């Protein structure tokens, strides 16, 4: 075990460098046999000759409800999306609840209803689960874990090892909506953005659409949740030994997200999303992929934001309109507002 931090900090759960250190340094050597394989959102395993995709995720968001969604929706869509971006059709989900004693029933009911609706919308069955109750103060109202299984889509072979120089990087839509919505919903920063809401949704329809026409060109996908686009692409760059070059102007960011980020000194590339995906697609398939995305409901804002290049190895480079460039690293800990 090579994880040297003496205690667990919030940073270890933020999805950036610290999380990666924990996973690579502690979990992988002790739990995951095939430590040589890069870890991805969902694992595809063979059971009796049949391929099954499996993934799990926990949701500890506060506040429970926020513009555009709630923890229940996130719990379903998050797992659906992990399966989707691994190149699998989501089939079934099991749910565990850790509930805090004192939680009002109507809050629980609201979330369970939200989960039911999200599952129906995403076309997955919820087939079982477990519930535990802990003392007041130990679960921030509720923690939800969802584990999903799915069926890998035929013809789709994803993985960093398939990525080549010249491949295009496609982003499904504007970034930062979810993370900023949550930040504002916490109410600590006295900011309001009337039109802003979480982007939580299933991205499987987009994956399915692309797989229909561009399966041969699909290389790698990820849903950029905690740590944002920057973290996901840094992981890609490291895993495939190449570089992700982004064109700043091409990256869609809503005005209100931009405004909030400017006010707080945050970079939209580090902010969590819950309804977007990144797809690396062979150059010759990029237009086809984009086309089908634009024709799919909710995919009209998909665009190419960059491409894969050789250098600088393992890094994400963002270029501005006037030729200046900067490296965008993985998130270190949670994004913190700054005044300087």
């Amino acid at each position: 075990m090579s994880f040297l931090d003496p205690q667990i900090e919030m940073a270890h759960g933020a999805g950036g460098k610290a999380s990666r250190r924990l996973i690579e340094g502690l979990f992988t050597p002790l739990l995951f046999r095939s430590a040589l394989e890069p870890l991805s959102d969902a694992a595809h395993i063979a059971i009796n000759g049949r391929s099954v995709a499996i993934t799990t995720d926990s949701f500890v968001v506060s506040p429970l409800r926020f513009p555009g969604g709630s923890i229940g929706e996130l719990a379903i869509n998050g797992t659906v999306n992990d399966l989707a971006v691994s190149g699998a059709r989501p089939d079934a989900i099991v749910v565990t609840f850790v509930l805090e004693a004192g939680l009002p029933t109507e809050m629980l009911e609201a979330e369970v209803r939200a989960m039911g609706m999200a599952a129906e919308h995403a076309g997955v069955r919820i087939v079982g689960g477990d519930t535990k109750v802990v003392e007041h103060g130990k679960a921030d109202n509720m923690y939800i874990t969802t584990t999903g299984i799915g069926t890998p889509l035929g013809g789709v072979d994803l993985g960093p090892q398939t990525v080549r120089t010249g491949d295009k990087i496609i982003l499904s839509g504007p970034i930062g909506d979810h993370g900023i919505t949550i930040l504002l919903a916490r109410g600590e920063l006295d900011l309001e953005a009337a039109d802003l809401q979480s982007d939580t949704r299933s991205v499987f329809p987009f994956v399915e659409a692309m797989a229909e026409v561009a399966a041969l060109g699909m290389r790698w996908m990820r849903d950029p949740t905690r740590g944002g686009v920057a973290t996901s692409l840094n992981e890609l760059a490291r895993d495939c030994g190449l570089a992700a070059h982004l064109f700043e102007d091409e990256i869609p960011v809503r005005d209100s997200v931009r405004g909030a980020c400017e006010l707080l000194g945050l970079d939209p590339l580090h902010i969590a999303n819950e309804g977007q995906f990144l797809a690396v697609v062979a150059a010759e398939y990029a237009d086809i992929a984009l086309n089908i995305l634009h024709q799919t409901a909710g995919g009209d804002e998909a665009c190419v934001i960059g491409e894969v290049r050789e250098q600088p190895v393992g890094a994400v480079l963002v270029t501005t309109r006037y030729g200046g460039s900067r490296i965008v690293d993985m998130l270190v800990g949670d994004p913190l507002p700054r005044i300087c």
Partner: protein
Amino acid sequence: MKFVDEFRDATVITKTAEEIRRLAGSSRRYRFMEVCGGHTHAIYRFGLKDILPENIELIHGPGCPVCVLPMGRIDDGLSLAHDPNVIFTAFGDMMRVPGTQGSPLEHKARGMDVRIVYSPSDALKLAKANPDRHVMFFAIGFETTAPSTALTLMRAKAEGVRNFSVFCNHVTIIPAIRAILDSPDMRLDAFVGPGHVSTVIGCRPYEWIAKDEHKPIVISGFEPLDILQSILMILRQLNADEHKVENQYKRVVPWEGNRAALKAMAEVFQLRPYFEWRGLGFISQSALSIRDTYAEWDTEQRFHVPGVRVTDPKAAQCGEVLKGVLKPIQCKLFGKECTPEHPVGALMVSSEGSCAAYYNYEHRKAMVHIMGQPA
């Protein structure tokens, strides 16, 4: 975004860069210091170094209020957080800065009540909302931020909010610039002046730099075009053998400064006889403390603060980097023991610290160039 996007116009930026290239020629090497950490940040964020000609070198100055704070002061502030009755509040910039017992965030992980605020008035609001706890605000910043702290203290007093105090670490910019110019190892041609500090102090306080030190100083805004235009104005002065104070950031900076802000500062603060700056040592009359008339709201007068001096680890060369004498990569700990995740000194943690900026923006590009490997 109005008043932002125009100053990021690509065509005009290209034009301005060409003009800079023309004026800079190729025979002379220029060394300009950008005093303010916000400028350092902007230069990297917009990739301005890529646009400027090779013979213009930008030296990062000590204008990072987090970076210049000695570790002992952080320890002092955090010592109060141990009291379960106290809510420790600070800006996000402070949260990852290491003290000898860890950073504020690490203290939070250990169960202490540490909270981020965006404004000193948020801290005062917190005090009003928690009458049975004491809210301590760890104040940092140059003259840009000090007036807001001052006004907040005036309100606290006027409204009789007794469970609120400020641990004051405000510093002033002019003594820092003086210390840089007094340093024998520095050779500078001109200064890109701090735009936002100047909205408060105006442009007069810099006149000695032009008159006595014979160096141009242009007070600059923070958008790419602001910084480029300032460099242009500096080059014009140098080429004409002039040295004066100029205000590039006219749309925001009044030549005489902000009287109301200065008045609030004078009402609440006084100059400390001396204050220790990380890297620059003790500088007289360079920092603010709270007047006796506000003693009840001064953390240092109200509570016992250990006041232990903590010297930086011997191997860390934060001081030389702060002064611009060393480049971050020349510090022995850079990129090895000291990284943004495991910072030894504040320059690696603060988003405006030279080391963090260098690490995030240049180092990885440089590493690839040298070794062809990921950093």
